[in-house]
């Protein structure tokens, strides 16, 4: 109960990806106040990094932006951006969550989102958002359509923080919003229910010794390919390989990189790679008509509506060559990247001199999901994914009343399933709130 015995009917959603946003909008529309906590400077999550989504090949930004804008403008949703959950106390109906608002060194009250600081910032470092495919500024927003469209400074890339030089952004800002002295702040939120939708990460390609330990430049992972294909990405949407910027004519896609591999990496199936690899190959062929795409696979898992047809269309219309077998080794040979794989359907060893290789790396939990779960008092499995209350019948609840889970934080899933999951979590919250009478 709240401080005066009242069950607080406010919800907190941790994570501003598509699952977090969907849950927040549902709860907001249901009439409840929502506090959305997001650790990045803008909401949108992984979908912001994507170029097009399967099976419709809709532009990811076009589908996502209406949702992020709706969230940003919703009267019931309060955004706590660039923030992380520090501590959780209490129980259902009266959680007291301490949130750390990280110092972004920009006063968002004053900032108008004009973007001048980003234009003029002289510092360029490999951008995490672009998966190292391109360079980003020290003061940045994640994308041109970011919601909120206000920047933060990354002190480890910023010349002022590293060498006490520059200060260009401060000089150029028309409203004086730059504040290098800003500190982390703590706020306390009193909520009745929490939805945890902190999303996923990819196993780093540096983990794979047989694929070069990440040192072969033209071996990239799926999200990096998304950035190459994005109009807002480092190559403005042209498929160019990282090492020399040439357009690759022979591209090898490898599914199950680090998935279904109990001996060395993750034993589970990452669920979305079959579909997004087919999507990548098709998008590649749309842009490079005389290129050849090879996909090394073990099985094709295309279970959703329209998915199997999508895969078959790729084979029949785009001439993508599917080779059933794994890849044992990848190494650089001059300008080419040599791929040693096998086609088990003919039984033959296969060698491809590729221009570029795209690895469909395994989906793993975010690094601090386990720590967050500890703060919430909920469980994770051996791989850091949040554990549901019952594997089949209670997929969005946890063992703790009032705490719910949504999206890829519970396990790998595609966008449609993540949204359904989030809608379910919001519905459970509303069910919980309905049980307690208003005062």
């Amino acid at each position, binding site marked *: 109960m709240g401080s005066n015995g009242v069950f607080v009917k406010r919800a907190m959603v941790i994570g501003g990806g598509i699952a977090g946003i969907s849950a927040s909008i549902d709860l907001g529309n249901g009439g409840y106040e929502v506090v959305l906590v997001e650790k990045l400077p803008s909401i949108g999550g992984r979908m912001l990094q994507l170029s097009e989504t399967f099976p419709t090949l809709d532009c990811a930004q076009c589908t996502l932006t209406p949702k992020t804008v709706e969230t940003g403008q919703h009267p019931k949703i309060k955004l706590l951006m660039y923030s992380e959950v520090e501590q959780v106390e209490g129980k259902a109906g009266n959680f007291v969550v301490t949130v750390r608002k990280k110092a972004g060194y920009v006063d968002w009250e004053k900032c108008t989102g004009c973007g001048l600081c980003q234009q003029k910032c002289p510092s360029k470092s490999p951008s995490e958002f672009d998966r190292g495919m391109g360079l980003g500024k020290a003061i940045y927003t994640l994308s041109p359509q970011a919601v909120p469209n206000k920047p933060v400074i990354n002190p480890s890339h910023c010349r002022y923080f590293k060498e006490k030089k520059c200060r260009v952004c401060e000089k150029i800002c028309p409203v004086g919003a730059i504040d290098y002295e800003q500190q982390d702040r703590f706020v306390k939120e009193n909520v009745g229910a929490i939805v945890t939708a902190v999303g996923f990460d990819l196993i780093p390609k540096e983990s794979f010794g047989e694929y070069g330990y990440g040192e072969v430049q033209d071996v990239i992972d799926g999200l990096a390919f998304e950035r190459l294909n994005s109009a807002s990405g480092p190559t403005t949407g042209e498929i160019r390989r990282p090492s020399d910027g040439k357009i690759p004519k022979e591209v090898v896609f490898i599914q199950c990189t680090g998935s279904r591999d109990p*001996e060395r990496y993750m034993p589970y199936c990452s669920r979305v790679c079959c579909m997004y690899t087919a999507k990548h190959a098709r998008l590649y062929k749309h842009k490079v008509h005389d290129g050849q795409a090879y996909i090394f696979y*073990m099985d094709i898992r295309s279970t959703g509506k329209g998915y199997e047809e999508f895969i078959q269309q790729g084979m029949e219309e785009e001439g993508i060559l599917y080779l059933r*077998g794994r*890849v*044992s*080794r990848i190494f650089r040979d001059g300008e080419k990247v040599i791929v040693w794989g096998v086609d*088990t359907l003919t039984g033959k*060893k296969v060698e491809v001199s590729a221009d570029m290789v795209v690895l469909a790396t395994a989906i793993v939990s975010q690094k601090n999901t386990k720590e967050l779960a500890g703060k919430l008092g909920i469980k994770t499995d051996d791989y850091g994914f949040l554990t549901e209350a019952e594997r089949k019948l209670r997929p969005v609840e946890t063992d703790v009343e009032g705490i719910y889970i949504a999206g890829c934080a519970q396990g790998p899933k595609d966008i449609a399933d993540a949204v359904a999951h989030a809608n379910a979590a919001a519905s459970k919250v509303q069910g919980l709130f309905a049980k307690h009478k208003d005062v």
Partner: protein
Amino acid sequence: MKIELTRQKVHNEFAKKVELISGQNLFACYQCGNCTAGCPVAFAMEVGPHEVIRYTLLGLEDEAVGVNTFWLCASCLQCTSRCPKGIDIARVMDALRMVVLRKKERKDHIQIPEFPEGFLEKVPQIALVSGFRKFLS
């Protein structure tokens, strides 16, 4: 080309013997072919190591021992080190060799009288000892 499977044929005595000598579970192989993809001598094999394992699991003894695959295996352990299911394929290859060589009507894979002139003097002892271990009964 057609094979008829029954519960006696699948995982039969031959397959069980191979599993016993190698200590590996053949059912664990999901035929990803990683072993064949990384094998340095697969270019000379009639079928890759993953196929021989498949033949063995299906109980097809004649097909399994009739190929040159395990005779060409150099026991370099590249397959074992990369198998995602943790199967020691090199041990399975050695087990297949042993199954053939331990039979009563065995035919040794190499015949010493057939060596060319001067071969035995030129080749280092390691090659002879290991070769005789692997290819003679």
